[in-house]
């Protein structure tokens, strides 16, 4: 395993993700949110005017960097292939529920481990939920659930999402008036644009080459045990983040008083559980969906669109949790998400005769 | 004939069930709660009937309200006339120190939660601007066992070097009911120059539009001290005490109790916001005040 270049590239990706994930907070991103795909999507949706929470409106350069870095890497290594066309509406809705799950936990799987490595013990329930969700997804796949078929064929449209993100990049630099920027709150906390963009591009490119994915790492570990490089990548990510947190003085081992965290552990568990389950069924966590969309996967592109819609609705409808706890709407959203996926598992299952 | 036999049997069974129901109700123990009169007996009964009914439902005993004048409270408590007591904080301290009463819950009401303060007030524009100005003036106090209507203000004056017995023109305590409101109105309409007014009454009267916030100058105000308190007599069944405490602590704005055939919201009827679990040590501030002012249970003759 250690002889393969793939292994070392995965370690490098994980090391960079963990270190940069903390450094971006040091350089200006919100506490424990140096990298958080769901928070970035909510912020970017706000910047585009899709919701009106004045504290969460900023077009995150990291998000654009992830996708375009993946595109650049895919084009450079001739990996870019427009493909897709499988279960588009299902993917759209799954993308929405994916963000709902993250919004109730207050973070994506990357932020989950960043919080954990910063000593935030409220993330433990989220980790347990994510593991449970991935396991549930694997059980579903093993029992013939095929909510969405893998992306195949030469479906056109795979280039549209990268083109869209190029347009967003132009918006970021040109700053048209319809683009909103928070002057206070989480949306007003950001690392310098060039630094954030460069970090996003680098991570996007590396993640495209290595196929690094948090939920994928957990899935592979369940399937292949300790042999999989992905598990070691996950561990390196966590250790790198923990060391960076300690060195930067941001490590605070406690259940209480953690930034952007609530104490409703059951809903943290369920939120991440939903994320884990959906991620396995659609082939990757929110970060991985961005990377795949950058490579020309139109199906992942639709998930990304769904995530933007989910990000907007999380803020507009009060689904997103806060330090005060999880709202009724958040709880309803999670339970509806589980019901949706459970229904899909029943309806779209290959049953042996 | 069979039909009549069946009917008779059914009727007998029904009667048996009804009687059984009656006798199970009659088995509920009766427990008395002594309620110290606040402004008047009528108001006290009106305020706390729904609460008493609520406690009966939750605890499974028949609580009976016993309205008691402040000055008679200690004697009647000592005589065992009631098991639970709802009093002000100085009376709780007296019952605790002299008779071993146990603290159950403290009532939340007003800005300071389960605490409130006493203030010395004068009418705005009367020329009395500072505490020193009250020397030689006419003052009204609340009843002597009122922690924020007498004790706290007396303490404030002593701390400022003013002797209420010597340095005032005279002081009086209004007679009858609603003493606190009477002395506040008394200052407003010039009957008294200054008064010892509980902050809670000032807050309530302002909220009800009876007075305006701008009508008075607050010359001095005590630190917040605990106020209305539920206590139990020493030796009361611990299970019963716990049930009553749980019922009080779990009270929510939507909880109801019956009063004279009506179902009313308990907290709203009682004019309170809930109950808090204070410690007996939280009442030490009352003890220290009582010692300084030479009040029961620490008075020296």
């Amino acid at each position: 395993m250690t002889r393969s270049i793939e292994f070392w590239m995965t370690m490098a990706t994980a090391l960079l993700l963990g270190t940069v994930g903390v450094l971006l907070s040091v350089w200006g991103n919100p506490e424990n949110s140096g990298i958080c795909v769901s928070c970035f999507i909510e912020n970017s949706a706000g910047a585009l005017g899709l919701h009106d929470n004045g504290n969460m409106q900023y077009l995150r350069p990291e998000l654009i960097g992830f996708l375009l870095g993946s595109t650049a890497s895919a084009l450079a290594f001739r990996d870019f292939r427009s493909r897709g066309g499988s279960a588009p509406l299902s993917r759209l809705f799954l993308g929405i529920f994916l963000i709902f799950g993250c919004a109730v936990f207050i973070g994506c799987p990357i932020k989950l481990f960043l919080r954990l490595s910063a000593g935030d013990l409220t993330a433990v329930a989220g980790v347990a939920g994510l593991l449970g969700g991935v396991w549930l997804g694997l059980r579903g796949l093993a029992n013939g659930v095929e909510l969405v078929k893998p992306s195949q064929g030469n479906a056109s449209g795979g280039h549209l999402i990268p083109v869209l993100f190029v347009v967003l990049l132009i918006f970021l630099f040109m700053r048209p008036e319809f683009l909103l920027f928070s002057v206070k709150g989480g949306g007003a906390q950001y690392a310098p644009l060039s630094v954030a963009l460069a970090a996003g591009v680098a991570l996007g490119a590396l993640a495209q080459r290595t196929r690094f994915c948090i939920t994928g790492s957990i899935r592979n570990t369940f399937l292949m045990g300790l042999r999989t490089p992905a598990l070691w990548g996950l561990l390196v990510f966590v250790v790198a983040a923990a060391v960076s947190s300690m060195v930067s003085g941001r490590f605070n081992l406690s259940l209480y008083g953690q930034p952007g965290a609530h104490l409703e552990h059951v809903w943290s568990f369920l939120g991440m559980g939903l994320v884990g389950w959906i991620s396995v069924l659609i082939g990757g966590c929110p970060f991985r969906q961005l990377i795949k969309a950058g490579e020309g996967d139109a199906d992942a592109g639709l998930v990304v669109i769904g995530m933007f819609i989910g990000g907007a609705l999380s803020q507009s409808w009060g689904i997103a949790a806060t330090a005060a706890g999880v709202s009724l709407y958040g709880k309803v959203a999670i339970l509806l998400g589980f019901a949706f996926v459970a229904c899909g598992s029943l309806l779209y299952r290959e049953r042996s005769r | 004939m069979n039909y009549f036999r069946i009917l008779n049997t059914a009727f007998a069974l029904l009667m048996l069930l009804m009687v059984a129901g009656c006798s199970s109700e009659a088995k509920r123990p009766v427990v008395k709660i002594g309620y110290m009169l606040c402004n008047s007996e009528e108001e006290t009964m009106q305020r706390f009937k729904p609460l008493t009914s609520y406690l009966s439902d939750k605890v499974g005993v028949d609580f009976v309200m016993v309205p008691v004048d402040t000055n008679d409270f200690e004697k009647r408590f000592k005589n065992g006339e009631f098991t639970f007591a709802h009093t002000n904080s100085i009376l709780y301290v007296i019952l605790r120190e002299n008779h071993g009463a146990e603290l159950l819950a403290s009532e939340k009401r007003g800005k300071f939660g389960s605490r409130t303060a006493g203030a010395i007030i004068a009418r705005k524009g009367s020329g009395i601007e500072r505490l020193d100005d009250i020397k030689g003036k006419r003052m009204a106090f609340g009843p002597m066992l009122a922690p924020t209507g007498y004790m706290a203000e007396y303490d404030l004056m002593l701390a400022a070097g003013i002797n209420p017995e010597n340095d005032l023109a005279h002081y009086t305590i209004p007679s009858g009911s609603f003493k606190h409101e009477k002395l506040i109105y008394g200052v407003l309409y010039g009957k008294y120059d200054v008064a010892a007014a509980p902050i809670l009454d000032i807050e309530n009267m302002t909220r009800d539009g009876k007075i305006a916030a701008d009508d008075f100058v607050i010359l001095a105000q005590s630190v917040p001290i605990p106020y209305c308190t539920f206590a139990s007599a020493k030796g009361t069944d611990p299970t019963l005490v716990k049930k009553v405490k749980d019922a009080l602590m779990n009270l929510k704005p939507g909880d109801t109790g019956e009063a004279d055939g009506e179902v009313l919201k308990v907290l709203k009827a009682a004019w309170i916001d809930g109950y808090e679990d204070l410690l007996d040590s939280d009442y030490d501030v009352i003890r220290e005040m009582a010692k300084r002012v030479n009040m029961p249970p620490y008075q020296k003759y």
Partner: protein
Amino acid sequence: MFRDFFDKSCWGLLAVALTALLAVLLVDAANRDGKSARGSNKAMEREMAYHARVELINKLYGPVEVLRTAGRNQEALLKLDELNRRYPGEAHGHILQGLILQDMGAPDEAIASFVEGIKLNGDYVDDKSPLSRRREIQGLVDIRSKDVSARVAANPDNRTLAGLLQKTNYLKSRLAGGCE
């Protein structure tokens, strides 16, 4: 993609559309003269509305602040009560109440008031906001949190103290930051 007349027409149309787009953007940029492209600047409007709100709040609650500054805290509380009845649900009232109660030696009640205010509007712990009272709230939390924890440890069954600890922890979490 350049085989027949139809292909060529599409290319031509594409070229015309892109050229026209560029021309429109360039001409507009040259003629804009600082004015907004859509007739109104949403971001500016929002900023002005926010500043107007802050001004209004300061004006409405000004008399309370004056009394507080003069040390007449109880009168400030009574005045605040009147305003709170007129504007229930306005976070500023809760925050001001917390500040006054803190001054009056009622820190536990101050914490409860701050929690209510911040739940309604997180600007009061945001340094970037003109409404920020972060310093005062942080100060209270720093002083009280050890004391509250000690009291809870000494009285583990006390529900009031448990509730107070929860509120203190909520303030600590909001002060720690994060995206909300």
